[in-house]
């Protein structure tokens, strides 16, 4: 163990952050977690709620799996990871219900959904089982941040087009201090049902994915243009 650790190059925190939030984003790049994503992003507030809860579980499961990776064999790793994640989610659900009851009333709906989030199993499998504890926790945090970003973005798009508001009822989630976030962008809007229902989620997600590809493509063209003269000189 000691040998491998001295040999591993020091953790590239910047790389992990960029992977989690953009390059290897749970939704944009891996297309994981679509089921809870489409189910709850009718409003930006709901998206934020699921994002925060998922981030917490991602960090915790990253830490646990990384701590235990020494004794888990590849053959039984999947059921063991599933057990760890399901136990964590259930404990979070129970604890929140008991001690953060008001928050649980808003988020409670989403917490069981986290178990269906294959991104958490995916990160346990592809990162936490191969990396150190700190790096795994940080990876969970960044993956969660990236996931939350997409959830809030998608929720915002669907909420604006679907009901003409933004961050409606955010104060139910974050407390009375955030009333300023609750905007009615289109007064007397009669709503556009399709965007609130799951098909609207797919449509909005499609546009967001296309937008991300477009940005990435533009950036890689720019990089190539910048690299070309250098190569010619060399």
């Amino acid at each position: 163990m000691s040998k491998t650790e001295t040999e591993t190059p020091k953790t590239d925190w910047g790389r992990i952050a960029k992977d989690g939030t953009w390059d290897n984003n749970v939704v944009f790049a891996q297309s994981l977690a679509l089921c809870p994503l489409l189910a709850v992003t009718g409003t930006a507030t709901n998206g934020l709620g699921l994002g925060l809860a998922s981030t917490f579980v991602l960090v915790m499961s990253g830490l646990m799996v990384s701590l235990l990776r020494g004794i888990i064999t590849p053959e039984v790793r999947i059921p063991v990871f599933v057990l760890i994640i399901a136990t964590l989610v259930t404990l979070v659900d129970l604890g929140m219900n008991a001690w953060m009851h008001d928050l649980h009333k808003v988020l409670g709906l989403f917490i069981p959904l986290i178990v269906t989030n294959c991104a958490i199993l995916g990160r346990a499998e592809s990162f936490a089982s191969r990396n150190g504890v700190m790096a795994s926790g940080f990876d969970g945090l960044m993956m969660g941040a990236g996931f939350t970003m997409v959830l809030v973005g998608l929720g915002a798009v669907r909420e604006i087009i679907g009901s003409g508001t933004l961050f409606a009822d955010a104060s139910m989630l974050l407390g009375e201090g955030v009333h300023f976030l609750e905007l009615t962008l289109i007064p007397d809007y009669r709503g556009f049902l399709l965007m609130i229902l799951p098909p609207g989620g797919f449509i909005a997600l499609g546009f967001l994915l296309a937008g991300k590809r477009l940005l990435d493509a533009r950036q890689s063209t720019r990089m190539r243009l910048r690299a070309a003269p250098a190569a010619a000189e060399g």
Partner: protein
Amino acid sequence: MSTVANPTYRRRVGYQSGLLGGFALVAAALLVMGDIATRDAIAEREAEDLLASLQQVLPEDLHDNDLLANTIQLPATAAVVPEGSVTVYRALQGLDVTAVAFDVTGQGYAGPIHVLLGIGVDGRVLGARVLAHAETPGLGDKIEIGRDDWILSFDGRSLDDPQPARWAVEKDGGIFDQFSGATITPRAVVRAVKGGLELFEANRDALTASAVLTTDAARED
């Protein structure tokens, strides 16, 4: 420890199954501990929630009793009450029943809608509140008091006000508003409230009988 990823003993079936069984055992133990640690707190929170809802449908000045303590059970006969029996919460003034409250259930667009219904002894609705539902956010959830005042339109209504035929949403010729984009949800709530009133009417005597027999003598003084 060595850098070898998999020492031989780990490849044995015994280690594998022991590992998996061990994890299952630890997970089960953790869940049991979590349940024990949180059970009382959760029950307490839920009782608080129920009491808070009850206080919204049973006005403070109508009762001087502990709403959660003086309940009676009514066999579930109507379609609008959950299976088994329905718990009726009674508002008492001294020993006289001034109002009752119980759960009614309507079939909404996306599953059952649980409505807590408060009815005065005169058969008028004191208040109705949606306790739980799975309706479309942004459309059907206007039945929640936190989002819309619609649910207040039942206040003061009784079985003959409006006439039975008008106990429906506007689309069906009734007097209650529906929401744009959602008719099934308000229709279900209207039906549930009407069913609750009918249940009250059918059991009026049992529900409004003086609480002498069921209340402990300690309350007398």
